[in-house]
């Protein structure tokens, strides 16, 4: 499954303003443009399709109630990333997410090698073993392509903390996969 092709008419600030005024068509366009990003952050965090969709839906419902506070399309993207991350953290605190056991992760690591076409999928599964903040930092870095300073802004954490989460998270993944740094 890959990300959907971008819409031919990406949302702009005017569309955002129309959505804020209650235009459902404009809001639908906002959803369609950003739904893959929001769903993917939740999916990579939870590795549970149904719950990822539930969180993503709640994020957009919250957005609908908050549209008047969104200043621009760039602000919208930032807001969506931040709120999705916060909801993922809340979800993990409730302890409802599926835990990948040590045995499962070890099985994944044993099976992983250079020629394994499922390596990317296994990496995604192993990500579930990381602490929530490390998982989010890595997701923002590799899914969204954000720089550490941008990750710090989205996750509301100091730059050095972000770097530490990235270093430790990547280190753990490398160790589980038997990859040398």
């Amino acid at each position, binding site marked *: *499954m*890959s*990300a*959907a092709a971008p819409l031919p008419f990406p949302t702009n600030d005017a569309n955002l303003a129309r959505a804020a005024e209650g235009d*459902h068509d404009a*809001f*639908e366009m906002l*959803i*369609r443009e950003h*739904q*893959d*990003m*929001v*769903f*993917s952050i939740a*999916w*990579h965090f939870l590795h549970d*399709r149904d719950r990822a*969709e539930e969180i*993503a*839906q709640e994020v*957009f*419902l919250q957005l*609908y109630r908050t549209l008047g506070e969104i200043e621009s399309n760039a602000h919208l993207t930032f807001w969506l990333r931040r709120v999705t991350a916060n909801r993922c953290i809340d979800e993990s605190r409730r302890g409802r997410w599926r835990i990948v056991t040590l045995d499962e992760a070890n099985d994944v690591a044993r099976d992983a*090698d*250079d020629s394994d076409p499922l*390596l*990317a*999928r*296994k*990496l*995604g599964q192993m*990500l579930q073993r990381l602490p929530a903040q490390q998982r989010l930092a*890595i*997701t923002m870095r*590799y*899914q969204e392509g954000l720089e550490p300073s941008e990750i710090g802004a989205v996750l509301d954490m100091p730059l050095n903390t972000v770097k530490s989460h990235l270093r430790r998270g*990547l280190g753990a*993944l*490398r160790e589980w*996969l038997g*990859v040398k740094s």
Partner: protein
Amino acid sequence: MNFEADLARALERKSAPDGFADRVLSRLEAPRRQTSSLLRRIAAAIVLTAALGGLTAHQIIEHRRNEEGERARRQLMTALHIASAKMRVAQRAVAHD
């Protein structure tokens, strides 16, 4: 093995499930439908209450009318009894004379 490239591939964006936007929009409509349904129920309850109230008032009025009619009938009968008794007294007095 390019670890970071593999990680980026593992974490590439996924497509949201089909119909995702429609489901969000339908959840936006749901509270409105619930409100509308609630208003319809309140309106129905008001109409029902008014109808029952009207029926009860009608029955009370009818009951009072019946009571008043019965009271008037009893008063008439009493008056006739009194008049009849007076007539008999008068007849007896005439007969003695």
